[in-house]
């Protein structure tokens, strides 16, 4: 650190790096930007790095994707395969599929690149999902970060569709079945379904247009949008400053942590390579999407285990658990509820997550800025809703993989489908109630710990024979952590008449809001945290219990 100050070199000519930097500053103004941003402080917690995993896997996907585009041929023209994979010799397939086989067997490093690309995509979606859950459960989406929540949500949805289009490109039997599924879903839209499907596929399924079209969407449109959103997402993180967990010395007005340069630059750089390393190692050891045994797509063939990648699994679940209801209306047209209802529920599942921050701010009427995170237990209703959503999503995943559950647990696939049908409605409610109760229990525990201290496990026998456990008062920082949170008062309906005795009109929406608000902050929704007086009374020396 201090060696640079005693550098004996004459300053007549600045070092090369400095000259380059000077040159750049004269043209780009980098010093100003760097001064402002390089010393930016970020808080330290492992869960803040989940978003970074997503960012780095996105970079890895871009890099490997570029390599794959060099060899992939997005064409549905039919060819006979004559590459090096024997069990496909002479089979008729599309050029897209043949070039995927070539990438796998005849391009140097091609198979590893394909596997890194695919595994990184799965992990990209997993990490976005987990990052979103972290943001949700800690309340980091509250003002001023609602828009950034939406950006993140859009990234997740775009990621899902980019993944799906990529899954479809090799034109293998698995992905072709997925495209058939999409065609069926589009066809189920009343009135315009047929036209939409013809437009999307350029004629009858499968046609020869869909793969080239999806290719453009997969390598150009969606990644371009995502790249822009990633940048916007990060700019907003800089602009808002990072949230932090509560603790001594941490307030809504400061950020306690380390500067971006050098600490986080070094960490982030190293972390990128760690993520890359883990993904590369997984890709080198575990096979993913072995298209060579899956076979080329032919509309007359289908296989069991034809499921989408996990992030689309819930849509598969929706289709599998929906009864195949079909109406023929008097005009002779068919409305296929078995497909159309899942198609409508699909965006709903996602919209619930997207709109939650706005719902909560409407319920709480909280207009303050929040930079300190909530402990999930201190927001039992929100935590309950989040857990309910996860369980809902999980039920749909179970429905989507019902055949594998049936095989591995020796159960009837029909029983699993019925479980998912009932669970679709029942499991989220149960999860909500149980989670909220667990949160309240944890709040009681916190209260108990503040007032009575920590259980030491030391049993003391008193002179008159009674046994007591020695409780040790918590250290100051713990006490702060357990009592720093706000406990807002529940909303109340205004008195029925105003000061002049005139009846006040309260709309049904406001009544509903107050009811929900009492679900968030009412007496049954939070355990009053210990007051200073309670704490002093109990710690004023009347024993330990």
């Amino acid at each position, binding site marked *: 650190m201090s060696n640079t100050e005693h550098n004996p070199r004459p300053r007549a000519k600045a070092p090369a790096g400095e000259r380059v930097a000077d040159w750049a500053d004269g043209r780009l103004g980098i010093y100003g930007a760097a001064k402002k941003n390089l010393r930016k402080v970020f808080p330290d*917690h*492992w*869960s*803040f*790095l*989940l978003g970074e*995993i997503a960012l780095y896997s996105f970079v890895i996907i871009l890099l490997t994707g570029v390599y794959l585009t060099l060899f992939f041929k997005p064409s549905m023209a039919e060819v006979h395969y004559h590459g090096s994979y*024997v*069990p*496909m*010799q*002479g*089979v008729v397939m599309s050029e897209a599929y043949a070039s995927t086989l070539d990438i796998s067997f005849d391009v140097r490093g091609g198979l590893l690149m394909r*596997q890194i690309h695919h595994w990184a995509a*799965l*992990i990209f979606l*997993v*990490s976005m999902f987990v990052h979103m859950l972290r943001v949700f459960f800690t309340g980091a989406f509250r003002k001023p970060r609602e828009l950034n929540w939406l950006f993140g949500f859009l990234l997740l949805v775009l990621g899902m569709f980019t993944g799906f289009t990529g899954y479809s490109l090799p034109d293998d*039997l*698995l992905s072709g079945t997925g495209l058939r599924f999409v065609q069926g879903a589009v066809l189920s839209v009343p009135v315009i379904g047929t036209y939409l499907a013809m437009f999307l596929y350029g004629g009858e399924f499968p046609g020869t247009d869909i793969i080239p079209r999806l290719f453009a969407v997969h390598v150009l449109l969606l990644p371009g949008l995502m790249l822009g959103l990633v940048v916007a997402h990060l700019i907003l993180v800089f602009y808002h400053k990072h949230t932090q967990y509560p603790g001594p010395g941490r307030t809504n007005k400061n950020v306690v942590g380390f500067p971006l340069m050098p600490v986080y630059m070094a*960490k982030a750089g*190293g*972390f990128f390579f*760690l*993520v890359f390393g*883990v*993904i590369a190692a*997984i890709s080198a*050891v*575990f*096979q*993913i*999407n*072995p298209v060579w*045994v*899956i*076979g080329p797509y*032919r509309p007359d*063939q*289908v*296989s*069991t*285990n*034809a*499921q989408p*990648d*996990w*992030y689309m*699994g819930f849509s598969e679940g929706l289709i599998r658990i929906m009864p195949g209801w079909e109406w023929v209306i008097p005009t002779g047209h068919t409305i296929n509820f078995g497909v159309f209802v899942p198609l409508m529920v699909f965006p709903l599942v996602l919209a619930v997550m997207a709109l939650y921050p706005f719902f909560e701010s409407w319920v709480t009427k909280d207009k303050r800025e929040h930079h300190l995170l909530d402990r999930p237990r201190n927001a039992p209703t929100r935590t309950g809703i989040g857990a309910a959503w996860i369980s809902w999503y999980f039920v749909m995943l179970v429905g*989507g*993989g019902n*055949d*594998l559950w*049936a*095989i591995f647990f*020796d*159960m*009837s*696939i*029909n029983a699993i489908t019925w479980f998912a049908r009932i669970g679709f409605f029942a499991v989220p409610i149960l999860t909500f109630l149980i989670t909220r109760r667990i949160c309240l229990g944890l709040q009681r525990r916190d209260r108990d710990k503040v007032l009575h201290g920590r259980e030491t496990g030391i049993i003391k026998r008193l002179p008159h024979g009674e046994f007591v456990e020695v409780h040790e008062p918590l250290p100051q920082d713990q006490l702060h952590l357990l009592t720093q949170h706000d406990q807002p008062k529940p909303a109340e309906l205004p008195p029925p008449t105003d000061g002049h005795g005139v009846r006040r009109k309260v709309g049904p929406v406001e009544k509903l809001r107050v009811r929900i608000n009492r679900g968030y902050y009412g007496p049954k929704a939070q355990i009053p945290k210990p007051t200073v007086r309670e704490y002093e009374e109990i710690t004023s020396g009347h024993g330990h219990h």
Partner: protein
Amino acid sequence: MKKLSARRRHPLAAIVVLIFALAATGGLYAAFAPAGEAQAGETAAAQSLAIEEGKKLYAVGCSSCHGTGGQGTSDGPSLVGVGAAAVDFQVGTGRMPMQAPGAQAPEKPRMYSQAEIDQMAAYIASLGPGPAIPTEEQYGTEDLSGEEIAEGGVLFRTNCAQCHNFTGEGGALTRGKYAPDLTDVDAKYIYEALQTGPQNMPSFPDTVMPEKEKRQIIAYLHQVNSSDAKTPGGFKLGGYGPVAEGLFAWVIGLPILVGVTVWVAARNAKARKS
């Protein structure tokens, strides 16, 4: 000669000629085909012995469900006309005798020796004509070229994959029934299953799927799903497709990466005291 010709109208002449003729044919027959007659008798005896033994085994092991004469009962289907191949498949893979009633008879260690199975097969075959146990040249695959094996893949995906999965890892059917895993199943049993359509499987007799196509399917399966099959991408995670891969990403990939984040987050400037 005169004496002979003078007596040719003797009433007993015809009888004498007949005796000579019989002696001649009998002698000739005895001279040219004595061994054949003895062998035919032996095979027939062995056959009827096998049927006899098979019938006894059947009475003990099978008749409680399939009926005393193989005519079937409410607990088991009729076995008249299922053929020896069906017996060899069902008993040879341990599916029969069934341990307990259920959606489907699972594969389990076989209960009978091959000799006993052959005896039961002989008995069942004697009840009515059906497919015989295939010979090695019917299901052998050594003569197939790469292209023919690839064609077997096309046949497999057209006829089998919808229940057995892309490479025959098996799959679920309705109400607890299932298409079993085909990993390392003997070529003979695959052939017999195709021929006879056991349990929930449709049958593919030679009129529907010629013998060569069956061999092609067997050869393809061996290439992609057996202990000799290559998985160029590494461990195949069961070969069940995206659900298994997604599960892996969640339960292995994510925890490793979270472990890394915890490690990275713990390495901060505070930890270094210098």
